[in-house]
């Protein structure tokens, strides 16, 4: 009985936490000023939000469903593997867009990153002065959203 109550409390708490974090993450997504900042919301807050829900579910089913499930753990694993990569790729895409459409840089409070210490470029926009310049295509709007 008490176990159930405690479990219920834990579940409820986790659920609230999960919902809350999901909301906060998305709130950050909506509110924060530039993409680089927005990226932080989903990668962390939302992931944890989902994670909380998943844990809640892990606790819930043995108690209420009579089954023990571990799929949630698997989902969490997947999310934890993929979320940083997604963030990484989105950031790269964004930086690439900014790099090729200089007008967008102004929106970044942090500006474009400097080159690394030893002079090597970042992978996303290296070869700036290389002869084989992939940016030679005379278009300014390619990666840019016209609505911006």
């Amino acid at each position, binding site marked *: 009985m008490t176990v159930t109550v405690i479990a219920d409390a834990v579940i409820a708490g986790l659920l609230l936490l999960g919902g809350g974090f999901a909301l906060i993450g998305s709130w950050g997504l909506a509110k924060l000023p530039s993409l680089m900042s927005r990226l*932080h919301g989903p990668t962390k807050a939302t992931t944890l939000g989902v994670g909380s829900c998943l844990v809640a579910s892990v606790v819930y089913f043995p108690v209420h469903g009579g089954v023990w499930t571990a799929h949630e753990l698997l989902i969490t694993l997947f999310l934890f593997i993929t979320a940083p990569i997604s963030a*990484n790729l989105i950031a790269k895409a964004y930086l690439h867009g900014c790099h090729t459409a200089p007008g967008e840089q102004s929106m970044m409070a942090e500006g474009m990153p*400097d080159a690394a210490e030893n002079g090597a470029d970042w992978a996303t926009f290296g070869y700036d002065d290389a002869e084989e310049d992939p940016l030679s295509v005379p278009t300014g709007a390619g990666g840019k959203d016209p609505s911006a």
Partner: protein
Amino acid sequence: MKRLLPHPGLTAMLLLIWMLMLNSFSMGGLLLGAFFAVLIPVYTAAFWPDRPAMRWELPLLRFVLLVIRDIIVANFHVARLILFRRNRDLRPGWLAIPLELHSAEAITLLAGTISLTPGTVSVDISTDGRHLLVHALDVADVNAEIAHIKARYERRLLEIFR
């Protein structure tokens, strides 16, 4: 043996995942899972040609627990930033973290950890593979932050990936 079990760690992990998915224990399920867990790495070995030497025991577990703890903390931290900090008061910035790690797997793990933990997202790697570009949502002192990351995560990873 190497042909049959190209990735023993992977095999173990797959078997674990299989049993997790099955939700119930049965001998048949275990055998089937073991069969798959052996089979799949054999097939995918070609896609993972040079795997790094890695310690699968305590340091990794410790690292994982640390990261989980940090994730939870970080979330509250970021939540606070999102909710209570005005946009213009945020101090976003770039961190170029010099790397001591060699292998792609290790660097990826580091980068993933960074992304999942406090207010930082790893963004890019330098063309010579020696620096990791990280974006921080709110950073007061860039160098201190870099040092913190290196000490907290990279050092531990160096232990795991020898």
